[in-house]
């Protein structure tokens, strides 16, 4: 891991550091918060930077800094888990369909197409209307809506690998499909899927914030960064930090992750060329 970071270009290192910082905040943010995230501390709403409250106050006078520290964990962990879920499930299904009969493969692909073609926001809307909005539900929804995408990528990768000689060799040995999928193919698509995982993460972060716009996101009084932006939107006119800071936070998180992915990709391609 450290080696991987060492081999990264500058941008990658920056990204890694940023990401690490956010991860840290996500883990320990709530303990660092000067106030309780939900306590109304000031009469004035949308207070500016500095002053009694580092990042001012929000639309009902809560301490923005504390709320951000508290909300980061949602913006980090939900996407993290969701993306992990989406990628792993997508990859596994992809592997399965790559090694199984063309017809099965076809059916699975059709089904995934179907899923992709349903706009994720509306899918979420329906699901949340059906099951209510809770963290587990949000996880499931976001995971489901990005799984087909992962599947597409994983499948195309897997199919390519499946046609390589070493897989054929294993076949001539009479190996089981499971072995082919897990032992021969999987290790060789892991790396690109890692990059894909990063992308999914970013997508989920953004989907979450759009959901919070539609009032379907994380449940108050908790709020992920997206919801913070949303609930303080009316403060945008007076340039309240309550809306701008969380927005910047989201931006830095996504950018950081992307930088890391890109440099990982770069490393991968370099390795490929080296071989």
């Amino acid at each position, binding site marked *: 891991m450290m080696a991987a970071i060492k081999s990264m270009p500058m941008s990658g290192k920056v990204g890694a550091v940023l990401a690490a910082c956010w991860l840290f905040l996500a883990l320990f943010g709530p303990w660092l918060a000067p106030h309780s995230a939900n306590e109304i501390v000031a009469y004035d709403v949308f207070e500016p930077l500095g002053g009694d409250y580092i990042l001012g106050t929000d639309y009902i006078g809560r301490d923005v800094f504390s709320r951000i520290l508290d909300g980061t964990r949602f913006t980090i962990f939900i996407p993290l888990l969701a993306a992990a879920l989406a990628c792993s499930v997508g990859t596994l299904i992809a592997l399965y369909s790559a090694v199984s009969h063309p017809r099965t493969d076809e059916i699975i692909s059709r089904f995934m197409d179907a899923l992709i073609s349903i706009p994720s926001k509306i899918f979420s809307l329906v699901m949340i209307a059906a099951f209510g909005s809770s963290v587990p539900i949000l996880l499931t929804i976001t995971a489901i809506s990005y799984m087909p995408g992962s599947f597409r990528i994983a499948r195309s990768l897997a199919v390519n690998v499946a046609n390589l000689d070493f897989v054929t060799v294993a076949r*001539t040995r009479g190996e089981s499909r499971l072995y082919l999928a897990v032992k021969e193919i999987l290790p060789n698509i892991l790396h690109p899927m890692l990059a894909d995982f990063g992308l999914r993460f970013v997508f989920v972060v953004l989907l979450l914030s759009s959901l919070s716009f539609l009032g379907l996101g994380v449940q108050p009084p908790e709020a992920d960064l997206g919801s913070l932006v949303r609930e303080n939107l009316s403060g945008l006119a007076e340039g309240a930090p309550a809306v701008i800071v969380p927005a910047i936070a989201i931006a830095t998180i996504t950018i950081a992750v992307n930088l890391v992915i890109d440099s990982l990709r770069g490393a991968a391609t370099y390795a490929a060329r080296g071989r």
Partner: protein
Amino acid sequence: MTAHIIVEHLYVEAGPTEQPVTIVDDVSFSLQRGEVLALIGESGSGKTTIALTLLGYARPGCRIIGGSVMVGKDNMADKAESQLAGLRGRKVAYVAQSAAAAFNPSRRIMDQVVESALMHGLMTRKEAEAKAVTLFANLSLPSPETIGRRYPHEVSGGQLQRLMAAMALICDPELVIFDEPTTALDVTTQVDVLKAFKVAVKATNTTAVYVSHDLAVVAQMADRILVLQRGRVVENNPTDRILNDAEHPYTQQLLNAVQNNDTVQNKEHSDVVLDIGDIEAGYGKITKAGKPEIPILSGISLKVLRGQTVGIIGESGSGKSTFARVIAGLLPASAGYMVLNNQELPSAIADRGKRECQHIQMVFQNADTALNPSHKVADILGRPLTFFHGLKGEAQKERVAELLELVKLPVALADRKCGALSGGQKQRINLARALAAEPSVILCDEVTSALDTVVAAAILDLLEELQARLNIAIVFISHDISTVKSLCDEVLVLYKGKKVEHGSGSSFACAPYHPYTDLLVSSVPTLDPEWLDSRKRDLDALDISVQNTDDLCRFRDRCPVKLGDQCNTEAPPLRTLTSGKSVLCHRDQAMLVAQ
């Protein structure tokens, strides 16, 4: 008179600037106008890198860090991109290794051939195209007027390679760089391409640099030969000098690798291991006629005896690899039978039992793709051991060690990932994996063609030795008849999915041959520099019209000794010659000898 090309103290390095690797190390040479210099050495010797510096070009990740590269009055080593762009293609031209890759698939050939002429504003499109057509003709390309209108994928590899030469010569450059231009080609096509190049170059008195790893080929083309090893010049002498009395041991190695030692051994063969009869196979759905939509093989029969080596020869498209796949069960035959160790062998892998799978092992041409890059050597060799013989833990470890020894690799390799290994080592691992199963038949598909000559020779020796020790049967598939002749007890020549000649290895020592076999044999370059000029041209139609379906002789369109329309109307008989081999041809023994 001063030399045309003068390269002095050239250094090129690669990799990240922090810890660079010097890949061209103090190389100097010079070349008179009109001379042809060959750069020879195995992959990684830096020959291509040097050639590219003559265009002032270094591949991504590489940097020219020292020395001068004088082409005429221009020092290509210290020119700005913009200036270089003006020189490239006009003054110095490049013919790439794989024309198939070096032609833009989405643009018509003519556009690409004339492009540089137009870019440099040397002539109008009309003139350029006219010139191109004449070049096509000189390069003895079929229907020169129209071939330019085609897309790259619509012409054969050999033709593409020559078209590339035309592309290089369109601006009458002073210097042409040929970068392994024929390695990707079949022997028969290679000859024509080489001929064409030689003529073209001599005609225009162009200086040429010819990059290759094949001494025999180089012998035909070059006036001087520069032998490279790990980025350094080990020998730089006129061709005949190199051929006759090479100074450097490495050069001698190269020479020996080419000298094919015709030692046909006659071992005692006992029982039949694999008996294959009247195989029909192909791709696509099975039609009502019971044949696949795209038939490849028809009526192939073969008996393989224990400890015997059977050679299958053919060029690309002959169906030799398909044959291997059929035996391995990857492509179930649509007709015919297979018997393994006196037991009916199901045609589809799915229907085969573990034992059957174990007894037929396949070794693929390209070790890079045949070994899972993410596995350790130990895993790769260990898997068949556990899978077939249930070996685990220590026992497995030991066996792996034995296997490595068997293929003459250090045991330490066991825990390396095979991405880190050299081509030769990979191929040995590849072989060891097959042996691990303790099979009775090994299918070797072009196991040497991806390797440098020296390395390839070593692998062949290994094969022979192993077979002698383990007494396994080997089906050796190759396009290189000389190798097969020297290696195999029995040889089978495929042409477009049909067996045209079949006999003992010894019977291939000399004529008579089937006309196609004859073509193959005579197409293999020798170290005699005169050889190429003595060769007669093969016919080269733009599209070989023969379908793989009818029973007529499929070689007839290219056959130099074709008998009028008999060949076009009647199916050729399978006649047995005195040498004991059978030949699929209308000509009888006498006529064949006469050719």
